[in-house]
């Protein structure tokens, strides 16, 4: 199974997961701080899940159905959780974190793990595969499923509180903002769902599948579809502010937002900066790595830089200046 590399930005560490290893880099200059595993542990292969972090701990998910908790400062393993007993499926794994628990999905099962020990507090079994980790607040866990259902669970017991059937499969972690869940589906729709009741606030009809969950900033939600369209809508009502001209190829990930700019990366290997007010293109570039394409992960924007991972090409991750699109640094693993 192959997937694209995913990145997560902690307080001062940028982590990139890619097949056999997770690399922790300095976000400023891309220098390598640590990598996990060091010894080529076979159970730690297929590390495609975007890492999740909780204070000084990082949770890594391997498609060989193991989750590893490591220290964010040096990558030292604290514990690991083995879900291989559940042999029935072969779905990708995913991880996320709340203030109290860490979440790991493997096949149809959500494991809610205690951060200190890795022992499950509870588990939840879904009817279909789970491709995305849940979002959570201090009361509830919101689990998206490939069976088109968004399910809310009690964070203490894992008991089901409500469920909402949507039009398509849900393959990305919802974005929780001000008590509203924003998410897309593999059915040309983006949704805003009330986190307490599960009622739908609005549904937006897009031209293509909206895989990545909308990114919310202020009163706007930004998202893109697999036909290469980028949208800005009113977060409260779903009313459209602007829609970009279709980009040259599909946009899979959620857009990144910083400094009134929306950043999107495309399957064809381009990174675009769009004006958040009107959707006009500020700059667009083909990433510098040789033959790089399939920029399918979510880009990340912070502190004047935008980070993008590439599936093919020489470099694993590249950082560009937000204002000019100039390359700041790029990283490729040794060997």
């Amino acid at each position, binding site marked *: 199974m192959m997937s694209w590399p995913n990145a997560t930005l902690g307080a001062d560490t940028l982590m990139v997961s890619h097949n056999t290893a997770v690399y922790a880099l300095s976000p400023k200059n891309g220098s390598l701080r640590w990598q996990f595993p060091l010894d080529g542990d076979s159970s730690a292969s297929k590390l495609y899940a975007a890492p999740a972090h909780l204070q000084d701990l990082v949770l890594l998910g391997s498609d060989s159905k193991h989750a590893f908790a490591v220290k964010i400062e040096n990558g030292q393993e604290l514990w690991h959780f083995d879900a291989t007993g559940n042999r029935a499926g*072969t779905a990708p794994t995913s991880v996320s974190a709340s203030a109290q628990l860490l979440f790991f999905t493997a096949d149809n099962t959500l494991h809610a793990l205690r951060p200190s020990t890795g022992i499950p507090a509870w588990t939840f079994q879904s009817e279909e595969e789970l491709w995305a980790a849940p979002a959570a607040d201090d009361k509830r866990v919101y689990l998206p499923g490939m069976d088109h259902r968004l399910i809310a669970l009690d964070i203490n017991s894992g008991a089901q509180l409500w469920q909402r059937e949507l039009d398509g499969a849900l*393959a990305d972690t919802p974005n929780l903002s001000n008590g509203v869940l924003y998410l897309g589906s593999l059915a*040309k729709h983006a949704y805003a769902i009330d986190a307490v009741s599960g009622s739908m606030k609005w549904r937006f009809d897009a031209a293509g599948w909206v895989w990545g969950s909308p990114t919310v900033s202020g009163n706007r939600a930004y998202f893109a579809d697999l036909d290469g369209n980028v949208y800005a809508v009113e977060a409260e009502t779903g009313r459209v502010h602007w829609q970009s001209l279709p980009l040259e190829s599909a946009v899979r990930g959620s857009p990144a937002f910083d400094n009134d700019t929306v950043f999107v990366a495309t399957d064809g290997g381009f990174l675009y900066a769009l004006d958040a007010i009107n959707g006009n293109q500020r700059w667009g570039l083909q990433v510098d790595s040789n033959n790089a394409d*399939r920029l399918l992960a979510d880009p990340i924007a912070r502190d004047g830089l935008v980070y993008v991972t590439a599936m093919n090409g020489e470099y694993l991750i590249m950082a560009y200046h937000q204002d000019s699109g100039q390359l700041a640094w790029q990283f490729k693993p040794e060997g």
Partner: protein
Amino acid sequence: MWNQLIIFPFTNTLLLLYGWLGNSFVLSLVVLTILIRMLLLPLTAKQQKSQAKMQAMQPEIKRVQEKYKGEPERIQKELKKIGYSPASMLGGCLPMLVQFPILIGMYRSIERAIPHAPLQMVDLYQAAYTSWFPDFPNLIPVNRHFLWMDLSHPDRLYLPFYPDIGIPILPVLVYLTTVLQQKMMAPPTADPTDQSAQMQRSMMTMMPLMFAFFALQFSSGLSIYFITANIATIGQYMYLNRERLEWINMKIPGGIQLKIPSVAAAPLPSKVSPKLSAARTPANPTPEAKNKISRRKEKRLQARKAKGGSRRR
């Protein structure tokens, strides 16, 4: 080009059939395989008829070889007279050549049509003819499970009381059906010691092993394709040669004996030399052969009686 010509049409047809056949991907694969076989029928029927013809000549070939032992030129001449033509077998290779791109196309299409990872889901979206599927989102996720199988992964059956080792059921079936198909349709060889005969023998050993290896390594959906294609080929061969079909014993690895259908010997063409023709009548025909001959005679007599007497009258 490759995508547009083979992979995308196959992928979309698989999905279309999946929707029509109650969301069963196995049925969809079986039906598409049969459809492909039907499209190739003009090519494969010619190949199979030619193979059957050669196979039916086997007793004659042996007889010629025995009769003219030590006279290779005469053997060739007499074989030519009875219509033995290894060159015509070459024309029969064309369907094999056509089937390789189809095989690769099927493998890639199965991977696309049943995405088990996010990357393949992106590829599926790009391959899908969305106008064919007004309700496309409801097909997703495509159910890739059937009985114990995950059709997107190599087949292994894990028994609950012995969960550490997976049993490759489908690869074994791929091997057996390929062996069966090859044994049934194997063309005869004029001289078992010549190079082409040796090549044929090694092909017959290697091909089933190669397909079984593919089945072990690649998605079990591909194994379903192999098995269906083999069974369809056997069925087609039996139908095309139904009048001359007989059951013979075949040994498979493990010392197991199977009854398999085979094409019976054909009557000699009129061109055959009188010497050979005389030699052909066995001094001691088998009881089965005697029965067949007397049945044919009886039928002919009955037909004449029905017409109102013999032709001589």
